């Protein structure tokens, strides 16, 4: 790109040579579009097109290998499908139990990592963030080995302190607990870093003022820290909600959605319908319902937690 942009007034072009001022203006106007075009094109091809085509797919069903238009039948089928409701319930359970616990832990961790009393702070921050950079499949496999009822390290350690075998992945309730623990291990540090970043923007004067007013540690946390963290809490809540509703890798690798569908999530059920049963229309319908759910829950969270002013 040779266009000069530093001059406030372009020099008149010699007659018959180079672009005229009007053309140069047009080129300047077009320049940002030229820069944006590749990204817009990629977005259209890899995002907009799949989104649109998924909806089209959701209106079709394969009959004898031929895609047949069935209108909204796939959506109606969802309401009559007990496995879909099981998946929805399991995902909702994670959302209502694991996410709040994890965010509370993240908040506590962020406050601790921000403390002036903490030494080797960088090492702790790195330590808690490291799980986030571990590959999803890799850590899923590692946990499935660690939590194996008979041959896993966790039960071996527990047996050494006199605790019997825990059916981490083989009992429906324990499998749900295990999934919650694994998710918490992976994402707590990530959320803590977001909260920590926000925590560091809260002016120290506010704490000084609170202290002068006689506020103790708890009152300072409640009346200074928490309100200050509000935007970060909103962000982590919305991101965790979206992540939880789409959760796939961990239950798929740890338990395959079992036992007895106890850890079957909407993501896993969507995958099963598409790539195990080849029912792409139905899987697309699940994807659309999932997207609507994410949108609605995001909206509610913004309403409840967002800045009222």
């Amino acid at each position, binding site marked *: 790109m040779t266009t000069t942009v530093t001059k406030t007034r372009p020099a008149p072009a010699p007659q018959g040579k180079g672009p005229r001022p009007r053309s140069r203006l047009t080129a300047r106007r077009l320049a940002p579009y030229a820069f944006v075009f590749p990204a817009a094109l990629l977005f259209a091809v890899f995002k907009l097109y799949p989104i649109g085509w998924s909806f089209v797919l959701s209106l079709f069903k394969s009959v004898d290998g031929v895609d047949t238009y069935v209108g909204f039948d796939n959506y109606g089928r969802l309401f009559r499908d007990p496995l879909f409701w099981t998946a929805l319930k399991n995902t909702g359970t994670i959302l209502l139990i694991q996410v709040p616990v994890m965010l509370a832990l993240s908040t506590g961790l962020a406050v601790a990592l921000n403390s002036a009393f903490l030494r080797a702070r960088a090492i702790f921050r790195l330590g808690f963030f490291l799980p986030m950079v571990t590959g999803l499949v890799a850590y899923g496999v590692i946990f499935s080995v660690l939590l194996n009822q008979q041959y896993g390290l966790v039960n071996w350690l527990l047996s050494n302190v006199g605790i019997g075998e825990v059916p981490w992945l083989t009992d429906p309730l324990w499998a749900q607990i295990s999934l919650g623990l694994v998710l918490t291990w992976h994402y707590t540090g990530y959320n803590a870093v977001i909260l920590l970043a926000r925590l560091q923007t809260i002016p120290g004067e506010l704490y000084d003022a609170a202290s002068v007013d006689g506020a103790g540690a708890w009152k300072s946390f409640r009346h200074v820290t928490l309100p200050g963290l509000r935007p970060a809490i909103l962000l982590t809540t919305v991101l965790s909600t979206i992540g939880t509703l789409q959760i796939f890798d961990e239950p798929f690798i740890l338990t395959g959605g079992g036992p007895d569908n106890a850890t079957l999530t909407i993501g896993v059920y969507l995958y099963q319908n598409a790539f*195990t049963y080849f029912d792409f229309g139905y899987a697309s319908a699940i994807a659309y319902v999932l997207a609507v759910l994410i949108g609605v829950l995001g909206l509610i969270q913004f309403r409840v937690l967002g800045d009222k002013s």
Partner: protein
Amino acid sequence: MNVSRRRVMGLGGALAASAGLGGLTGCSSGARSGSAGNPAKGDITVWSWAGPAAEMRALVPKFNKLYPGIEVTVQDIGNPAIWDKITTSMAANGAGLADVLHIGVDYLPAYTDRFPGQLADLSRLGAGKYRTAFADGLWGTVSRDGSRVDALPWEANSGGFYYRADVFEDAGVDADALDTWDDVVEAGLKIKKKTGKYLLGIDKPASQQDSANLFQLLLQLQGTMYFNLDGDIMVSSPEAVRAMTLIKKMNDAGLVNDISGGWNALITSIKSGTAAVLPWPTWFGGVIEDSVPDQAGLWRVRLPPAVRRGGTNAATVNSTHLAISGTSHHQAAAWKFVEFVLTRPQSQVQIYKAKGIAPALMGAYEDPVFHQPSKFFSGQHKGEVFLKALNADSPAFNYTSDYARALKAVTDAQTRVLLRGADPATELRGAADQLAAQTARKVAR
């Protein structure tokens, strides 16, 4: 940066939509068409997994002596990863599909029904002349209408009953005298009492699809499977209830070890010798030999006992096949390779010697290797044990395109029976009804 809430919500909506909706694009039927190409020239790619991939790779130098112009690349995609890879390629109208595909009997009907035309019709390449070359019943699997040929059979796995001879001896049980699975349960009680070992292992929470293998074996020994030949649902048939009741009986008596955790847990359990019996098909013999070479002489094998007294103990429980992609532009060259691997007895003998994979090609069994005593299996003629099963009358099983759904319904039912003590008949009836609602198939009652 100042970002309005409306903007953030808009962004969130877009994120949500793209997050949930991407990934299914391109999933539609209709294949591009390939071509035969030059039968003596071309680069072909083969998709398989683990042992079979290694064995095909080992055959390539000999193949190239006959066909120097055909370059073969065998890729070990892994199992079950290969099914996802084939599915996504077929869903993308064959884009990226290998020329030769190794496909199990449980996936073949689903691929041919859901993606018609994505597998080449091998009858056009001359497959018809091998119609009688393979084990009984397998031609019907690869050529369902009798004229079109979707694949050629490779393995024909018969149900087997591998057992630790030393454990049986310690418990004072004669394995050869077990006529029925009720006898096996009685033997299991003695083994548990005398040696403390489990009778067998099952992945009770169904962490892997293999968890229903014993249930399927017990069904097939009774001549039935999840669907009848008309495609009607049979998972709640009297035979199925009997099979699940037998499994419950073993479990309730404390004879079933939980081997959840997939392949590694299974191999670990074999190494630690927790169970006396491995009711696995032919190919598993090679796995036992590879896994516990130090246990040579401790293992024996026989065909499984019948479910009912006087019933059969021979069942071809599964098979695998080589197919050619309908979009391949080197179908003729790919066929030459498939023909070389599957219809040439020397190739199948070499594979059997290396990995114990049982050929569907009956001509291969004339080789002495199938009739020699096995040092590992206590001097038994292991090859002949399974050959006897292959030569027995074997009913055809209709896996249908809904096998995967049926397997899911059945494994869920089995998990409830094993982990919660649920009633087999009730659970299987529920599984049948669920399957009927999902597939619009009739339940044969």
